[in-house]
């Protein structure tokens, strides 16, 4: 059987960055295809290219043999492709029914009233996704999972041939995951082609017919879920060559006063609970990794610790309860955050970026520290006058870390430093972390989905899943109990 949706030679460049490079694949009717890859691998871009939200630089997107590449999004939608976005904004002042009805309306200016049959149809769809009992409610009153159901309903309202779903299970409880899986499987059973985009094989393995793994914009493996999970390249991307551990004895740290103690930390984004009663303790000089998939809540946890999001619960910094400091004051107190988005000053030079990091240090100390950093990251010295924007991804990450180190941190939070970086850079970053752990007394909190990167330097590991800490222990125990689990379960 040939593909219903045929992608060939799809390429997208953003400036110098090739986000998607010559990607080709088919999706057949009655098939669920999983498109997986770590953050920054280009999977979301592929979806946007299919939907016409981004224009491809090259390549074709054929639906039933008709090339849709370069056509406007609304025509592609009309041609028979529906999409469920990861983040969606419902119409707030309209009921659930009206929101779903929207997906059934014709693209005509003269459409004044939806007919009785359209309302019946919308009601039926709502019932099918499990929203039958809240038809007349406003979206703001719904729990998170119901909002996602509403998005599913909107996407299938027009009876599309192909359904694209971005991160279908992000933020859902395991019970809800089951419901959503059943729904998605039922789309397939009606003969639709379904393309699931997810960051990991694990979450979609049970339901997909085939999997394609993307890395740095290219397909690195495809086939049955089990084969892709067993694939050497995929394992290297997710697990690296193999796990090594070098933890120091817990006893070294056990008797010290914690530098940071987080207790019962909860964070809500509107209705959605991003973190649920999370506990975390760090001792001075310790290196702790928080491992979790995309959407598990790592970034939210770090943002709460560094004062960027409001939270419930208690955070003790150096033995004292923290109350109401600004994020900037927290940073000045030595709790320095280096986020996954890096937040460099793109139009400023490397030197200016570093200077802004060291602005609160007295002159001589600043120069001394700068010299030390150039030893750690020699490439930055060579790039001193170049603007940060023009650096490669790896160099930008090094600059972000260097800038954070200029702040003279007592605790350094590193969020996903490996994001979208080539393996050779990971080696250099790993060496830098090793050096920081062994040669300085800076406490480090590292968040990673890349387990191989997170483990070698860690003294302790936490595992975060769906906003909860589900495991804590030494890296060696992790390698035995969790590692395989992490990729497959």
């Amino acid at each position, binding site marked *: 059987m040939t593909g219903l949706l045929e992608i060939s030679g799809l390429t997208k460049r953003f400036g110098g960055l090739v986000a998607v490079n010559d990607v080709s694949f088919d999706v057949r009717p009655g098939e669920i295809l999983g498109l997986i890859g770590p953050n920054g691998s280009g999977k979301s871009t592929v979806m946007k290219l299919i939907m016409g939200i981004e224009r491809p630089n090259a390549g074709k997107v054929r639906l039933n043999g008709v090339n849709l590449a370069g056509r406007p999004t609304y025509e592609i939608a009309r041609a028979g492709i*529906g999409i469920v976005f990861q983040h*969606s904004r419902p*119409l707030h002042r309209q009921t659930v029914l*009206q929101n779903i*009805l*929207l997906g059934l309306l014709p693209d005509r200016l003269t459409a*004044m009233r939806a007919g009785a049959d359209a309302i019946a149809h919308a009601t039926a769809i709502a019932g099918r996704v499990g929203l039958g009992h809240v038809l007349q409610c406003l979206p703001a009153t719904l729990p998170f999972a119901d909002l996602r159901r509403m998005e599913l309903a909107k996407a299938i309202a*027009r009876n599309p041939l192909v359904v694209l779903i971005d991160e279908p299970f992000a933020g859902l409880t395991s019970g809800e995951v089951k419901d959503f899986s059943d729904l998605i499987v039922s789309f397939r059973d009606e003969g639709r082609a379904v393309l699931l985009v997810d960051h990991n094989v694990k979450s979609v393995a049970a339901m997909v017919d085939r999997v394609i793994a993307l890395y740095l914009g290219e397909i690195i493996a495809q086939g049955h879920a089990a084969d892709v999970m067993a694939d050497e390249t995929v394992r290297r991307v997710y697990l690296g060559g193999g796990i090594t551990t070098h933890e120091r004895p817990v006893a070294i740290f056990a008797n010290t006063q914690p530098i940071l103690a987080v207790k019962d930390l909860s964070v809500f984004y509107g209705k959605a609970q991003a973190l649920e009663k999370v506990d975390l303790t760090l001792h001075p000089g310790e290196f702790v990794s928080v491992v979790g998939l995309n959407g598990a809540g790592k970034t939210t946890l770090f943002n709460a610790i560094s004062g960027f999001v409001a939270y419930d619960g208690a955070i003790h910094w150096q033995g004292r309860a923290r109350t109401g400091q600004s994020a900037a004051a927290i940073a000045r107190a030595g709790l320095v955050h280096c986020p996954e988005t890096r937040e460099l000053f793109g139009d400023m030079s490397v030197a200016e970026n570093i200077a802004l990091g060291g602005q609160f240090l007295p002159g001589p100390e600043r120069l001394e520290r700068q010299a030390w950093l150039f030893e750690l990251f020699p490439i930055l010295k060579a790039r001193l006058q170049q603007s940060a924007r023009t650096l490669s991804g790896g160099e930008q990450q090094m600059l972000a870390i260097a800038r954070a180190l200029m702040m003279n941190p007592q605790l350094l939070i590193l969020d996903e430093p490996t994001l979208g970086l080539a393996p050779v850079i990971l080696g250099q970053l790993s060496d830098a972390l090793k050096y920081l752990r062994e040669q300085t007394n800076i406490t480090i909190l590292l968040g990673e989905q890349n387990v191989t990167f997170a483990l070698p330097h860690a003294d302790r590991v936490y595992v975060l899943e769906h906003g909860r800490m589900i495991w804590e222990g030494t890296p060696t125990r992790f390698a035995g109990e969790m590692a395989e689990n992490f990729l497959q379960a």
Partner: protein
Amino acid sequence: MKNQRIIVAIVLLALAAAPWIGISDYIIGVLTMICFYGVFAMSWDLLFGYAGEVNFGPSFLIGLGAYGAGLADADLGLPLPLCVALGTLAAVLGGLLLAIPALRLRGPYFGLITLVAVLLLQDAIVIFAGTTGGEIGLSVPDILSVNATVNFYYALGLLVIAGTVLLTVANSSFGLILQAAGQDAIEAQALGFNVVKYKIAAFVLSAFFSGLAGAMLVFYLGTASVDAMVDIAVGIQVIIAAVLGGRRTIIGPVLGAAFLIGAGEILRPLGQVSGVVVAAVALGTILIFPNGFLGLLRGRHSA
């Protein structure tokens, strides 16, 4: 919702009865101006509140309607209804000319270009002073009526018709799509809607009523002038009326217009200070109650 309709009906009936309960022609005149500004403000609200586009140049559309009608009357001597029709047409065509390229622009640029359109229209009127009367204004030979009550009924009729049409549209399927387009254009497109098409249609509808009201205003005042119809200050009044009354409600902007015009008249004895007071009250309302008068009324209602 039902209560609201009853309230609106009572207010309209009271307004219709107003000329018969011994109110002076002066107050009827104020009420007439409120009706005209109400139409301007609700037309603007369709564009902002529903389509999510900030039009800083409502007076571009009003001015095109006013001068289109005025010139048709003063220079061509056409019958009054035809002049009004031509003025409205001018506003719609001008609106299209502005909207089709401008709606492609993102962010603040749509607002900027609408602002520039006003400045250009203003300059054009001054440059072609021979035809347009320039800064002095353009007197028209025809007039709606010499009777204040009749004029008021014309304006009230316009307000009711415009309000009914705009509310119907806002609450229709078209309005639903328009809101989706205004809130998240990408998602609206992914649901299969040609977003630009709907926004242009909304702009045309807004231009239609702004132009129609502008054209009729000329024959109420007896003159078309930059100060009364084109000046940025006129546009500012319209925007403030809409935000003050409660954006995204169509009805709210009429309340805002009533406040702006009414308070301006009541405070007139204060002289120049009245303007400061009105602006200060408007500013305070926006700061403290961003949902405006209507939001305030509704909020108290539900609480």
